[in-house]
């Protein structure tokens, strides 16, 4: 079973390459039980979205 450190490593890797089916499965299982990692996952997506918006911000 994954611990949080391993789950975090998989989540960041998942931003840069496709994870294997087994990795996705263990990650999903971990996320079901771990609110900290669920928050982390959302934050990674938010950061990606931020990069996409960055040049278009109006200030």
């Amino acid at each position: 079973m994954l611990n949080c450190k391993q789950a975090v490593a998989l989540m960041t890797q998942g931003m840069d390459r496709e994870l294997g089916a087994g990795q996705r499965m263990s990650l999903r299982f971990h996320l079901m039980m771990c609110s900290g990692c669920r928050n982390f996952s959302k934050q990674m997506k938010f950061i990606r979205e931020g990069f996409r918006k960055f040049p278009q911000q109006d200030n």
Partner: protein
Amino acid sequence: MQDSPSLNPDPRGERDLSADLAALRRDMLKFARLQLRDEAAAEDAVQEALTAALGSQQSFGNRAQLKTWVFGILKNKIVDIIRDRARSPVAAETVDEIPDDAYDDLFNENGFWRDDARPSSWGNPENSFSSQQFWQVFEICLTRLPKNTARVFMMREMLGFETEEICKELAISPTNCWVVLHRARMGLRLCLDERWFNSENRNAEL
């Protein structure tokens, strides 16, 4: 820098475009500097992008469309510059910029989040996109990352390079590439968490 393009008030459309582009120039420079970390190269990229924009016959309904389009041109210029740069011997340095164990203390000995490090919800973080102050923090956090790490991260996220291509450009192994990106993501997340989502700044503004 060359003289600004003709400000001839006739025809009206052209004058409006010139004025808008001048307003964009500052933002473009900021963007290019962040990515290139080289003032002269940033100036060149922005100038070329503006020249290309002014040379085109495109017309735009609004300023936001124009901005998206001009930044698209600028991104391509920056990508060209990065590709043209000789393979610099930064590889090993890049990989080690953020130490191996930099984020170890977020986790306990079993690899689970420590109580004080467990990510808490950022609520509806998208609301921050409309805050000017948020973008300042975002930029500060990017700038605080080590130089080459930030460069790799921005190649990936702002310029849309595939990871394989970044490794190739920097002549580092895919594994090292992921390591650099991993540490960059950890660093940016922590910085945003500390300086915005769990800080007075944000509460003051939202």
